[in-house]
């Protein structure tokens, strides 16, 4: 992957990769740092991602590679800390674009925020597969390949994550989970 192709990747998917980092970290500062580290790690590993004809699929593959890099860096960062990192609770973040969307009702917004908080509160292993699956729109097979774990493990983590989320939402009185 050349520098020009990395630039193109950033234009196409920079926002999506940053979003992934933001959901992983739960706050802006850490997310920006993780995003930068991810992209700089990509520069180091650029020979591993080959863009042959510049198709959309190739760039999508590169984006998924970046999500895996971000997950790995995030996991590594947590592993280095003796305690879980101090995270800003996700509902406290003021830069949610949710607030800009005036047509959505307050209750819907509230539910979304709670749901996002439930995702954010997942243990990191479950959180990573959940974000890759729902946010990164990766298939179970791809997640397994990228994280180097069996497909069944991805399924188990997803299933368990959903059970956690369901439990948390129902505890707060939300139905339909």
């Amino acid at each position, binding site marked *: 992957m050349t520098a020009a192709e990395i630039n193109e990747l950033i234009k196409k998917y920079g*926002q999506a990769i*940053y979003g992934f980092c933001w959901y992983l970290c739960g706050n802006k500062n850490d997310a920006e740092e993780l995003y930068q580290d991810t992209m700089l790690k990509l520069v180091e590993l650029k020979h*591993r*991602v080959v863009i042959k004809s510049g198709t959309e699929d190739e760039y999508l593959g590169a984006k998924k590679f970046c999500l895996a890099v971000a997950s790995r860096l995030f996991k590594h960062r947590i592993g280095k800390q003796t305690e879980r990192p101090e995270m800003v609770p996700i509902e406290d973040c003021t*830069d949610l674009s949710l607030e800009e969307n005036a047509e959505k009702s307050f209750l819907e917004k509230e539910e979304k925020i709670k749901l996002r908080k439930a995702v954010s509160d997942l243990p990191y292993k479950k959180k990573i597969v959940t974000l890759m699956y729902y946010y990164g729109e990766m298939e179970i097979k791809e997640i397994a390949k990228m994280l180097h774990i069996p497909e*069944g493990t991805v399924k188990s983590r997803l299933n368990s994550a*959903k059970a956690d989320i369901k439990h948390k939402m129902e505890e707060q009185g939300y139905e339909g989970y």
Partner: protein
Amino acid sequence: MKDIDKKIKESLKDAPELDSGVNERIIEKINDDDYNKEKGSLVKPILIVAAFAVAIAVIFFIKNNAPKTEPDNSLVSTVTEEAKSDTIDTEKNMEPPETETSVTPYSDVPIDYVPVEERKEEIADDDDIYSFAGEPVTEVGEDGEYKIYEDSMFEYSVSLKNGTLCLITTKGDDIKPEAAEDEAHMIDMVKSYIDKVYPDFGTEDGEWTVEQEQIFDSVIYRKEILGEQTVVVNFMFDKEHVFRAGNIFINGDGTVVEKAEITEEEAIELAREKIYAYIEGYKKIGKTFYAHDLTKLEPEVKRNTIKGESYWSVKFNNKAVEENPDLVEPYFYGCDVNVVTGEVIHVSSSK
């Protein structure tokens, strides 16, 4: 896609915008030739320095260990020449490998690689647990034929007579099982194991139903035993019949530290499951007189020893009969639950 899937997906659509300054800084850095060169050739100087360090160490070693006679200059020069040629070879190998794969799994790329030995502590702190696998061997036991499954750590016997999974013996201290990724991975392996033993358990497409998945929710948990955090695997699974394996207590390094006893309450539940299955079995063959109100069963428990092994003897008194003596059904059911394995034996009832 289910509602929960849609909702989760929907909730993750509103990530905040990335500040344009961040991308600018990154692009600037990426386009910076010096940065690229520095990153691209980082390994090379390290290896060259390492090669020289090795060469110097070899020379010192030879010098220090050489007999105290005339120095053998030819030997030193040979070693130096070899070291030089090593350096040249190493430099040749610095080119990044060509790859046809467009994307390589990132997990193949070591980040601050930590040897497995050093990871042990981390593994022990995590929910890791060990592998289940193995080819079965059929053996004949006291109660008929059993299939014996072995893996690196345990031996399982599955009764061909009634499908009971009997626990499970450990195979000694010299076992070095490969750690599973985590608890979920362990569950996955238990599933594979069950799929292997009961291939008809899974649904047609090989996926487990929510109900089947939930079997594992309540049966794997952490517990402190003898001051150590352990994972308790107590897997139960209902495939028309009910059966349950005993408790296995597995330490962080994969050794079984203790087989804890089944509690009185657990014994009652195990016995109740067995009795229900027993009654259901009779229902199926048309013995309708067993169709009473199962909530009327009241347990009495006492400790018992059978063939040198400890059991909870659980007796369910059928209150429905007490209340209505005309009912034609047993006035009690009884069975014995092994306090270590949870195996339920000797199901009996009054006539």
